[in-house]
C-alpha cells in the first residue's frame, strides 16, 4: 500500500484560514486538473469542463488531507456544480436540459468570465 509519512500531531494554528468560498450560486466555473496523486474526490470525467455553481454546501475538512491522517484543517468550501450532459460527453444530449450535478471543492475550481468564455 502506498504509505505516506503521517505527520506528528500538530496544534492547529490559531489563524488557519478556510479555503474559500470564492464562488456564489450562478457563477460559472471550470474544473482544473490539479494532478494530485493519492486520494481525491474529483472524478476524471469533470476535469476541464465548464459548469455552474448551484449550491454552496459549507466548509469541510479536505478529504485529501483526511485520507492521510491530517485532521487539523484548514477547511475548504464545498459546492454543488451543474454541468450540461452535452458539455461533459460531447454530441447532442438525449434532452437539452439533461444535466449532471456533483460536489466539488473550492480549490479544484477556477472562475470563468461569463462574457469571454
Amino acid at each position, binding site marked *: 500500500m502506498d504509505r505516506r509519512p503521517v505527520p506528528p500531531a500538530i496544534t492547529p494554528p490559531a489563524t488557519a484560514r478556510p479555503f474559500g468560498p470564492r464562488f456564489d450560486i450562478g457563477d460559472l466555473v471550470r474544473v482544473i486538473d490539479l494532478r494530485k496523486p493519492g486520494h481525491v474526490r474529483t*472524478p476524471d470525467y469533470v476535469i476541464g469542463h465548464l459548469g455552474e455553481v448551484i449550491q454552496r454546501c459549507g466548509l469541510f475538512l479536505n478529504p485529501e488531507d483526511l485520507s492521510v*491522517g491530517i485532521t487539523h484543517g484548514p477547511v475548504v468550501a464545498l459546492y454543488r456544480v451543474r454541468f450540461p450532459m452535452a458539455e461533459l*460527453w460531447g454530441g447532442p444530449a438525449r434532452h437539452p436540459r439533461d444535466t449532471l450535478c456533483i460536489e466539488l471543492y473550492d480549490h479544484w475550481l477556477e472562475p470563468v468570465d461569463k462574457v469571454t468564455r
Partner: protein
Amino acid sequence: MSGYHDIGGLPAGPIPRVELPFQHWEKQAEAIRNLLGDGSRRLVSLDEIRRGFESFGLDKYQAYSFYRRRLEAMIDTLQSKGLLTREEFERELAKVQRRWTGDPCLRP
C-alpha cells in the same frame, strides 16, 4: 488524477440486478469502522479507508468483494498507524480458525 476506482463514464455492461444479503460479518466490520472513526477514538476515518482500497492495486481491488475491500483497507490503515501488525493479525486469525474447526490438538 484518476485511479482504477474512478470509473464515471467508462464503458460497462448491463447493471447486475442482484440484491446481495448484508452478512453479519459485513455489519460487524462496518460497526467496528464506525466505532474506530468516532469522536472518542478517531483512529480510522472513511477517507483513510477509501485511500486504502484505492491503493490496493487493480487486481486486489477487483478480486475482493465490497466489504472485504473495506475490511482489508481498515486492517492496512491500523497497521500503518502502529495499532497492530499483519503478523499479529495472522496469528489471531489462525487462533480463530482453530477454534472454529475445534481441533483438540491445537487448543491453547
